[in-house]
């Protein structure tokens, strides 16, 4: 299946970070005009491998060949000169400069007397037209959407004559429609003779956009398949190394409403606001809020966490007004809260595990202002064993936990308090399948015990798998709810696009 003369060959790449072997004797080759997907869980070594390829890291063993010529290790400059371009997950653009300026920075000689702006503009327009990458060269990067910024990154690589393009989790920041557009662009680039490697852990993307899949697990290549010859189920099992199934929701009748919002509006600070939002979450029910990120999910989470105050409308918890509470009051009332970003808001990384476990409840775990440390450590030890937080003691620095274990800590400190209401904001973002399954089963257990759960997520499989009812959020407004049974790809797509009357009818027809 490999062409006689591959454009890119990795040969026995090994890279260690201390005791960790991030890449273990990895070899792969890429043909002209081919799209390879590099599939693997977080920590499988995908990003390390691509960083070696591009010269950010020097490999401990092995080499990279482009068109048969060995690249000197550890210099991105050599990689660029050889025609390798990289689009990072986090863009490397200067926001206050224009598209044109961002593209030509570093591409022109430091000593040339003038910037060849007209020639460069013409060239950018030409590349844009060839590959269907419409961007205005004169626009400021800050004014562009995330999808457009990504196009600028790709243009930057193409402007430097890249023939091999590496994209690190290109769809992590994109909405569904933008992602589909991106893959169309990648396909046309491949047809134009470029070779592409993209990194992903999303199976459907890999299936729809690649010619060949290379599966990494624990730093090793565990399988290589032609995309046409494999199935998502096989890839999932290869990627995880065992068959993991997410727990299923058991049908049961929801009780009385616990949290009710009516015409809730919030407009403070930056970001998307909430505009006259209505929802109910009942006892023993999970309400899923789906939508493309940046449509008001963050603000909804902030209000329910006690970090933002409502300007208009009401939100009640068991009949009590909670539209203007503080985080401490929220905890005292029995509102459980899983924040959107566990590193930034969920834990203080440099504090010990036990301190993070009780930080929300310091007043109740102290006497005369002194923290009862023995009690706190005891509770934390119980939390560690009950929620299977691996490789940790109560005294471990929280920063050292993996994302999944950190999330189990945050979930655990909420669930042990038996909250009547639980806000789960992107509870499994960036986690691997094993951790996702654990978090899901805990959420379902809390539901079975009668908690009302508001699940905010971008992961549609998660939303459909866990939720009893679904609402979409678009530009700060919520759709009317639909039962999860009536959700299919078309209905959810319409809901997320903001066309919910049509979606409702679609759902009605589906019954």
């Amino acid at each position, binding site marked *: 299946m490999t062409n006689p003369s591959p454009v890119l060959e990795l040969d026995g790449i090994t890279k260690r970070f201390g005791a960790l072997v991030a890449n273990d004797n990895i070899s792969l080759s890429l043909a002209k005009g081919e799209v390879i997907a590099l599939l693997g869980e977080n920590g499988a070594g995908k990003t390390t491998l691509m960083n070696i390829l591009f010269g950010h890291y*020097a490999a401990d063993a092995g080499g990279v060949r482009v068109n048969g010529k060995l690249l000197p290790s*550890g210099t991105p400059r050599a990689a660029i000169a050889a025609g390798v371009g990289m689009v990072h997950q986090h863009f490397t653009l200067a926001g206050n400069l224009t598209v044109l300026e961002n593209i030509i920075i570093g591409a022109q000689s430091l000593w040339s007397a003038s910037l060849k702006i007209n020639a460069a503009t013409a060239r950018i327009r030409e590349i844009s037209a060839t590959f269907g990458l419409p961007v205005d060269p004169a626009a400021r990067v800050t004014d562009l959407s995330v999808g457009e910024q990504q196009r600028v990154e790709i243009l930057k690589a193409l402007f430097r004559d890249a023939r091999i393009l590496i994209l690190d989790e290109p769809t992590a920041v994109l909405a569904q429609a933008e992602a589909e557009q991106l893959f169309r662009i990648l396909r046309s680039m491949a047809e134009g003779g470029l070779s592409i490697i993209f990194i992903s852990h999303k199976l459907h993307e890999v299936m729809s956009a690649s010619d060949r899949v290379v599966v990494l697990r624990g730093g090793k290549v565990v399988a290589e398949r032609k995309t046409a010859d494999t199935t998502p189920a096989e890839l999932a099992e290869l990627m995880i190394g065992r068959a993991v199934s997410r727990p299923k929701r058991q049908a049961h009748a929801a009780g009385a409403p616990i949290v009710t919002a009516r015409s809730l509006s919030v407009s403070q600070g930056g970001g998307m606001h909430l505009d006259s939002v209505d929802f109910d979450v009942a006892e023993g029910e999970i309400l899923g809020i789906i939508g493309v990120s940046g449509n008001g999910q963050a603000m909804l989470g902030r209000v329910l*966490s*006690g*970090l933002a105050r409502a300007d208009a409308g009401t939100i009640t918890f068991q009949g009590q007004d909670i539209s203007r509470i*503080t*985080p*401490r009051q*929220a*905890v005292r009332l029995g509102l459980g*809260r899983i*924040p959107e970003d566990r590193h*930034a*808001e*969920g*834990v*203080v*990384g*440099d*504090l010990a595990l036990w*301190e993070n476990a009780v*930080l*929300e409840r*310091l*007043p109740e775990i*102290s006497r005369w*202002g*002194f*923290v009862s*440390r023995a009690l706190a450590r005891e509770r934390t030890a119980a939390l560690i064993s009950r929620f299977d937080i691996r490789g940790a003691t109560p005294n471990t*620095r929280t*920063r*050292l936990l993996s994302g999944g274990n950190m999330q189990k800590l945050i979930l655990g400190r909420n669930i042990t308090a038996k909250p009547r209401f639980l806000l789960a904001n992107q509870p499994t973002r960036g986690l691997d399948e094993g951790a996702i399954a654990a978090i899901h089963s805990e959420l379902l257990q809390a539901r079975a015990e009668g908690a009302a759960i508001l699940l905010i997520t971008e992961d549609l499989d998660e939303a459909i798998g866990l939720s009893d009812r679904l609402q979409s959020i678009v530009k700060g407004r919520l759709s009317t709810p639909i039962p999860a049974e009536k959700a299919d790809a078309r209905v959810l797509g319409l809901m997320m696009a903001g066309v919910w009357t049509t979606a409702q009818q679609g759902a009605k027809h589906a019954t």
Partner: protein
Amino acid sequence: MQLERREDISLTALFIAPFAAIALALVLCTGLIAMAGVSPLTAYAEMLHGAFGSRLSITETFTRASPLILTGLAAAVAFRARLWNIGGEGQFYMGALVTAALGHSIVTALPLPLAWLVLAIAGMAAGAMMLLIPTILRLRFGVDEVVTTMLLNFVVILFIGLMVETVLKDSMAFGWPQSVPVASSLRLPNLVPRSRLHVGLILAVLVVLVVWLVQARTVFGTETRAAGLNPRAAAFAGVPLTTTLIKVAALSGGLAGLAGVIQVLGPMGYVTTTMSPGYGYAGIVVAMLAALHPLGVIAASLFVATVFVGADAMSRTTGVPSFIANVIMSVALLAMLTALLFTTYRVRR
């Protein structure tokens, strides 16, 4: 070459860092001492002798260390909460000024322990005020407290100059710009007869222990650390960031003010515009060398006091200017900051 965050900070490295920094500072300063025409070994031996060679020099070193412990603690407490208090010097002087003003007038009527308590509270309040203003400016308007606290130092010292030339002028001082002395009954008792060492040292050490206990064991201490390390997560968990920072400011400014109180009631007896050889600024060095740990503050204060007292003696016997003390201290600070960088980050090619 790039810096990479270490997975875990080694406590051993953190413990070794200040010693390495001090050693490096001493090595780097040998060049300067040699330029002054003196053998560095002789100079350092003279410094050590000057700081610990006699009963008098030992008591003098501890006398110097007493206010440093408090100003160092003031800086450490504030830095822990990421409140960059560079105004220890001004806060020290405000504590001193209030002590002199009250200590020769109304407070003299009170019985002794009560009078001391009143002076301590008043001096701490004055010091706290000098930090509360910049802190509130930062919270309300985002004014950088590094700038405001540092500039306030100059304002305060000029204000002291005004006071000791006018309302608080000591008419018996033959025209020297110094304040009226506090009542002799209010002066702190000596620890060692025929020396300047006073009970202020004991007080400073006790205060360190109390602050350590508060930081390590109380809700306030835990909240302060959380707020300093990750304000967003602390706020999410319900830590009231604004009130926490205001409490920290009051504590930090109060501690620096208390240093001024004990300096006036102890060795000085009155206020002048030159009574501090930079106790407030040296407090920053002390706090960093202590890696912001309250107990480390005591050891670091002793080091800085040794350098100051030793350098004075050394310059008398060898002729190397005593400014070398400031150089050693500054280099030690830079070396410590670098060392702290390497305890959190490692270099990777």
